[in-house]
C-alpha cells in the first residue's frame, strides 16, 4: 500500500476537486482499480461440511499478528453459546446454529468480510482509502484512513471494526482476504488450515459452477440457494447450506440491489451535471435580476 500522509492527502484532494470540475460524474464512481475483474477470486463455504473446529479463527489471528493463543484452546465449544461478531481482535468467527433437519447436528457458519463485488465501504469512504482489488479482495490503506468509521455504518454485513480500546492511533480492522499472502501465491490462512476444506478458494465463476453442481447432485443436502451469488450485487465469499442462513440469522437477509447503489444513485442523480450549483446560481441570478429591476423602477419614480 502506498504511503500518503494527511497533508499530502488534502493537497491531492484539492487538486482532485479542481480536476473533477471538468470531468463527468462517472469517473468518480469507478477509479481504475475498482473495476470488477472477470477472474476475481472467491471462497465457497460449505456449511454442511464445516465441523466448527475454529482452526480458521486461530490461523487468521496468527497471520494478522493478533494475539492467538494455543490452537488446542480453540477446541472449547462453549463459545458457541453466544453469537459472536468479527471485531478488531478476531477478524473471523465461527458461530453455531441449530439444524432444522437434524437436531443433533448443529450448523457452523464462519463470518468474515464478504468482499462484495460492489462494496459499500469503498463507496462510503470519503478519503478513498478503501478499494476493490483485481483478485476480488476489498482492502484499505491505513495511512489514508482518517477514522471516520463511515465504512462501518455503510457495510451491509457490519464487518469493519474499530480499535476502540486503543487510545493512540486506533485503526479500522477487517478481513483483508489475506491480501499479502495471496499476492505471494499462498492461500488465505483460513482456507489453508481448514481440516475438511469446508472453505474452497478459487475463481468466483468456477466456485458458482461447483456450488450449482453440488446442489444438483445432493438436493437433500443443500437448499437451492448460493448465499452471496446475488446478495448486494454479489460477494466474493459464497455459502452453501442445508437451510436458509438468513432465516437462521447466521447472515443478514439482503436484497440483490448493490449496497452503494441506493446512496450513489441519489447522490449522483442530484449532483449530476452540476444541477444543484447551477440552479442555485440561477436562483441567485434571478433574485439579483428582480432586485435590480425593483431598484431601477424605484429610482425611476
Amino acid at each position, binding site marked *: 500500500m502506498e504511503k500518503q500522509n494527511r497533508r499530502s492527502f488534502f493537497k491531492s484532494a484539492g487538486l482532485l476537486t479542481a480536476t473533477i470540475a471538468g470531468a463527468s460524474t462517472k469517473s468518480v464512481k469507478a477509479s481504475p482499480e475498482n473495476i470488477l475483474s472477470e477472474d476475481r477470486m472467491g471462497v465457497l463455504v460449505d456449511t454442511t461440511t464445516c465441523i466448527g*473446529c475454529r482452526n480458521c479463527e486461530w490461523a487468521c489471528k496468527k497471520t494478522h499478528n493478533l494475539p492467538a493463543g494455543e490452537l488446542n484452546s480453540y477446541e472449547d465449544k462453549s463459545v458457541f453459546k453466544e453469537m459472536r461478531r468479527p471485531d478488531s481482535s478476531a477478524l473471523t468467527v465461527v458461530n453455531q446454529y441449530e439444524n432444522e433437519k437434524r437436531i*443433533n447436528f448443529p450448523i457452523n457458519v464462519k463470518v468474515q468480510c464478504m468482499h462484495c463485488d460492489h462494496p459499500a465501504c469503498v463507496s462510503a469512504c470519503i478519503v478513498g482509502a478503501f478499494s476493490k482489488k483485481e483478485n476480488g479482495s476489498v482492502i484499505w490503506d491505513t495511512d489514508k484512513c482518517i477514522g471516520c468509521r463511515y465504512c462501518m455504518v455503510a457495510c451491509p454485513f457490519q464487518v469493519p471494526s474499530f480499535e476502540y480500546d486503543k487510545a493512540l492511533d486506533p485503526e479500522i480492522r477487517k478481513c483483508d482476504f489475506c491480501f499479502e499472502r495471496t499476492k505471494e501465491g499462498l492461500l488465505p490462512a483460513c482456507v489453508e488450515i481448514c481440516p475438511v476444506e469446508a472453505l474452497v*478458494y478459487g475463481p468466483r465463476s468456477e466456485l458458482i459452477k461447483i456450488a450449482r453442481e453440488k446442489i444438483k447432485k445432493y438436493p437433500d443436502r443443500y437448499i437451492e440457494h448460493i448465499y452471496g451469488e446475488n446478495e448486494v450485487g454479489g460477494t466474493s465469499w459464497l455459502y452453501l447450506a442445508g437451510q436458509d442462513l438468513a432465516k437462521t440469522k447466521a447472515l443478514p437477509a439482503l436484497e440483490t440491489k448493490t449496497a452503494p447503489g441506493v446512496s450513489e444513485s441519489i447522490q449522483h442523480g442530484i449532483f449530476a451535471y452540476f444541477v444543484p450549483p447551477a440552479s442555485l446560481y440561477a436562483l441567485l441570478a434571478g433574485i439579483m435580476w428582480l432586485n435590480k429591476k425593483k431598484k431601477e423602477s424605484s429610482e425611476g419614480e
Partner: protein
Amino acid sequence: MKRVICGILFFSTLVVAQNKSKNHLPDGKAGSLQNVNCKTCHTCDVPTKQNPCLIECPRDEMITVHQTAEQGPDVIKIDKLTNKYLPVTFSHKTHSQMSAMSGGCGNCHHYNTAGPILACADCHNTERKREDISKPDLQAAYHRQCIDCHKEWSHSTDCNSCHLEKGSPITHKVTKGKDHPKVKEPEKLIYETNYNKGKIVTFFHSDHTKLFGAECISCHQNDNCTRCHDTKNVQTVSSTIPEKISKTGSQHHQPCFKCHANDECSKCHLDKPTGPFNHKTSTGWALTRFHEKLECAKCHENTNNFTKLNNDCVSCHKNFVTGKFEHEKTGLKLDEIHQEFDCGDCHSESNLPDGKAGFANKPDCSGCHDDKSYPKDKPGSLVKVIKK
C-alpha cells in the same frame, strides 16, 4: 481330413473370440462382462491399458465394488500427509465389516470404476492449492469420510479420537486384527399394521438372510452406525433391537417390494402371525434330507425372483445317469444285476404304486417281477445312509 478338422477348429475359435470381444464393445446394449455400460467409466470408445480414458471423479454413475471385509487390507497406515500428528493407523478391516452392514465398500470407495479398488490418494490431490478444486484435497477427503460417520454416533469431532500428537508416549493405537463383533439378528419380527384386511405381518428375518441369501445392505441401505451406536441418545451399544424409526408406508414397503413386487397383499398381511418358510406348504414339494440344508440359491439361480423348477432329479443333478449315480447314497446298494439297468427301468410309471413318475417315490417290483414286491424284496442290500 486333418486339414478340415483344423479348419473347423480354427474357425470356431475365431467365432468364440469374436463373441467374447463383442461383450466388451461399448455399444451401450451389449455391456461389458459385468453388465455395465462402458461409457459409465470411459470417455473414449476403445479404452486401452495405456490410455484407459477414465471419466474424472466424481463420476455421476457409480459402480459398487464388491469385496468381503477380509479381502481388503487389515490396517492401513495413513502417512501421506505430515503435520503435527503421527501417522494414523486406520483399521480397514473393522471399518469394512461395519460398512458391509450398510452401503458396502462404496461407502468410502465412491465413484470407483469396475476395475481395481482405488485408494483415496488416487483421485484426491495431496496439495490444497491445485488446479481442480471440484473435489476435495486428500486431507479433506480423509477427514470428511471419517468425521461424517464419527460425528454421527459420537457427536464429537475430537481430533484425538483418531490422531496421536507427535511426541506422545504411545506411538500407535492398537487396531490390528480387531473385528467388529458379530451383529445379532432377530429370528422374526411381527409388525402390526393399519391394513384392515390383514393387520399382522410376520417377517422372518433369519429366513431372509440365511435361507434366501438377502444381503444386509439390500434392506439396511440407509441405516448407519447410529442405529446402534448413538452414544448420546442411547447410553451404550444397545443389545436388543434398535428403537423403531418412524417410516412412511412406502418406505416400509420399499425393501420388500424389491422381490415381492408382484405378490398379493395377503402374502404378508395376515390376521395372525405365521410360521417360518416351509417349502412343502408354500410350493407343494417337500425338501428332504440333503435338500433341506441347501441355500435357496443352490437350486434357484435367480434369487430375486424364485421360479418353480422341474423337480426331476436330473434337471439339477446332471451327473445322475446310469452307471454314474451312486445308488447306495439312497440307503440301498444295488446288486450286480440291477446295477446294469437304466434308472427308468425301475423308476417308471408302471412300477410306481399310484402311477406317479419321478424319483421321489419308491418303485415296487411289479413291472418286472410277478412274485416280488418292495419293500419285502430288495434289488440289493440296505446300507447306512451317508449323511453330509
